[in-house]
């Protein structure tokens, strides 16, 4: 059920250009985390570093007792079997049809017979809504279908860690919503650790347990969703509310004079919108890794803004949660919160 990833002091540069430095965070086992950041802050580079496709200059990525950047090649390939990765445009093999693409990891790494392979592939294709498109080539389908096929391929080996690069790019809002729901459902079903790289705030507001924000070569903040959504930190506040007012400028950052001018014009971010409730698995399951709503805030003495855990129907999920868990008959999920203690990660 999911694997914890501990990142310590990770630094990456291309030539003289530092992409990010001293990034430390812990992706808690079985939880969904989202990494946000303006375009070009190296979110995808971070994701690729996590699977060992790019070697960081310094720092460690601990998966269990294995330090990924320093593993010998053989162990690295072995460790990668824990991962499923959905690349930005699916990264399907252009010479194979969708069925073969999705069956590829099974044929490579398992000794399953062709009928078993077919059963698993069809199951995953149904999951992502691609039944009937088995014989299409990646060149013949739309971007959204490629992405879903890529997700199916990432899922066939039942990964412990799923990394998703911009699930929303090039998708319409409805399909994005479906895909987000699918991610939450998947997490409930397989309990894998998820990291989603995106700059879609709706995704960030509704899907994850934790949010991280990269800006200007630094990890500005990483912590539970509610903490970042109610954060007073200007960069976090600006980004999560998609305002022009704040330290993030069009190209990179704004200087002091621009910020002062903004303040004079009264462009500061006003009252924050209430924190949207987290997506629940669509068939009402409790996600195995999920901490109870408000647990982190309670443990750290943070008062969530009014309306934080209230959904459309006016239910307060902090109060609703134990009842919900009980009604689902999951005792383990309630226990997982460990009396309001947020699983490792916390803020930097």
């Amino acid at each position: 059920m999911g694997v914890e990833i501990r990142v310590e002091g990770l630094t990456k540069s291309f030539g003289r250009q530092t992409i990010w430095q001293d990034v430390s965070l812990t992706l808690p086992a079985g939880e969904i985390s989202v990494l946000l950041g303006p375009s070009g802050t190296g979110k995808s580079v971070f994701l690729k570093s996590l699977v060992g496709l790019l070697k960081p200059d310094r720092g460690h990525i601990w998966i269990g007792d294995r330090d990924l950047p320093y593993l010998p090649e053989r162990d690295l390939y072995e460790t990668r079997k824990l991962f499923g990765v959905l690349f930005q445009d699916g990264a399907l093999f252009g010479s194979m049809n969708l069925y073969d693409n999705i069956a590829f990891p099974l044929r490579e790494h398992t000794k399953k017979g062709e009928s078993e392979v077919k059963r698993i592939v069809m199951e995953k294709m149904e999951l992502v809504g691609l039944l009937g498109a088995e014989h299409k080539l990646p060149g013949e389908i739309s971007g959204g279908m490629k992405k879903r096929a890529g997700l199916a391929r990432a899922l066939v080996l039942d990964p412990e860690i799923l990394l998703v690069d911009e699930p929303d790019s090039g998708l319409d809002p409805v399909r994005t919503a479906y895909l987000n729901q699918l991610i939450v459902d998947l997490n409930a079903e397989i309990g894998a650790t998820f990291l989603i790289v995106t700059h879609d705030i709706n995704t960030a507001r509704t899907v994850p347990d934790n949010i991280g924000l990269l800006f200007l070569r630094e990890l500005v903040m990483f912590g539970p969703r509610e903490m970042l959504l109610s954060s007073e930190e200007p960069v976090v506040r600006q980004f999560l509310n998609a305002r022009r007012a704040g330290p993030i400028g069009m190209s990179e950052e704004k200087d002091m004079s621009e910020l002062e001018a903004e303040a004079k014009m009264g462009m500061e971010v006003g009252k924050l919108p209430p924190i949207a409730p987290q997506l629940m698995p669509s068939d009402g399951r409790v996600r195995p890794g999920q901490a109870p709503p408000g647990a982190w805030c309670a443990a750290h003495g943070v008062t969530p803004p009014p309306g934080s855990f209230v959904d459309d129907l006016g239910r307060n999920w902090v109060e609703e949660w134990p009842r919900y868990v009980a009604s689902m008959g999951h005792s383990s999920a309630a226990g997982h919160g460990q009396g309001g203690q947020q699983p490792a990660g916390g803020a930097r």
Partner: protein
Amino acid sequence: MSTPGIGADQREGRKSGGGNAALRKISDGATNVAIKEPGRFFALVLDTFRAMFQWPFQWREFIQQAWFIVSVTVVPTMLVAIPFGGVLSLQVGGLIRQLGAQSYTGATAVVAIVREASPLVTSLLVAGAAGSAMCADIGSRKIREEIDAMEVLGINPLHRLVVPRMLACAFIALFLNGLVSVVGLIGGYVFNVVLQDGTPGAYLASFNAIAQLPDLLQAEFKAFVFGITAGLVAAYKGLNAKGGPKGVGDAVNQTVVITFMLLFVENFIISTLYFQFVPSKGM
């Protein structure tokens, strides 16, 4: 928790760069060409040879690639070999007639074509047709993130893609070399007999007067080495393609240029060594 004054240090860093930027860019470029690129290429070569002995060998890919290389090279090879043989026999035939050694036209044509011309034509085709196609294929996979996806799925792209391509290229180069020899000789024969009024008997009788079996073997050895080299350069450039479709175009361009240069140098080295170690046949 928060990071106050984010970016202040970076802002200063950026200002101090200034003056020597152009110089630094040139020196960066020079180190890149002189040290980094050859170093990385060498690393890829070592990794590829290591991957060559990994089980299981990708027979399917090997056969598909071999067939693909045949399909892009056979016709151009023949079309290049015919005029090549013709030109050689025109040049050499004229010279030989002036020396009064018409009876040796066949012998000179065989030596020129088998020893030198056919490895050269093979190298042109292997680099220009096979290498460029291979680089375009691997490069486009790279920019579509297929290579990354493959690595993430726990599969070594060197083992899966590069080794079968490299060996297919070398394998087919052996046959291409043979093809060029045969077609070139036929072309030479036709030109000699039809255009230069040579006698068929003289051409055929002196066939093995100077040439010997090691000539053919060294040519085949050259072709094999050319195939390996072309495959490796194409793989290296393809795997390092970046920056979208234009990046693939650049990689293909560089592959062809670099492969040509390397193959001509290799040809020179192998020929020199050959003449040092294998005595010419006495007449």
